[in-house]
């Protein structure tokens, strides 16, 4: 299968709602990153994790290398959270530079 499977492909939330995105990996990954892409195509890095959990404001991400998954949790969704979210993982023992991206989750937040 695909090395990085991301779900769901699309998600629609009302403002104030909470939800989560998930990436499953076909093999052990060294690290994972989460990105948000806005409607203009601009990508920003949300999290980099080699293990464990990180939080930043209303966002929280977890990476479990052994169980081969990572999650991104959005709390109290706001309109500006709309966009496409990608996870990307780096293979254990692989090139230090290669990231494999999931197919993305298109998030729409409605008022």
């Amino acid at each position, binding site marked *: 299968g695909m090395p990085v499977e991301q779900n769901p492909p699309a998600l629609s939330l009302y403002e104030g709602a909470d939800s989560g995105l998930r990436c499953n990996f076909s093999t052990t990954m060294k*690290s994972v*990153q989460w*990105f948000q892409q806005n409607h*203009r*195509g*601009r*990508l*920003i*890095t949300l999290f*980099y994790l080699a293990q464990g959990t990180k939080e930043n404001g209303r966002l929280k991400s977890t990476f479990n290398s052994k169980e081969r998954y990572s999650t991104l949790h959005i709390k109290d969704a706001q309109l500006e959270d709309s966009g496409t979210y*990608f996870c*990307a993982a*780096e293979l254990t023992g692989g*090139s*230090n*530079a*290669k*990231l494999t*991206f*999931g*197919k*993305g989750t298109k998030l729409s937040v409605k008022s």
Partner: protein
Amino acid sequence: AQTIHQWPVAEIKAVGSPLSLGCTIKGKSSPNLYWYWQATGGTLQQLFYSITVGQVESVVQLNLSASRPKDDQFILSTEKLLLSHSGFYLCAWSPQLSNERLFFGHGTKLSVL
């Protein structure tokens, strides 16, 4: 502060014509540099990366080439465009020897007709 600048912002080109996209990073010495490609509505695919001047590694073969003529410059090019080259091209940098954080440029939208 570091800045990353990509040019052009958008291009419309004919099949078979040449292409050159540029990326410049200011305020950071010896960055890792990357080119990514994104088909319309699709995911990102890493094309090339460079750790140092003059050295470029190819990740995916798409009939494109990349060069790093200066520490702060990364060029993506081809002599003959294909329809399949259409999409969104993103340049990114990360601190030397670390993939920990990627900083992306604004991207170049390429339409090949």
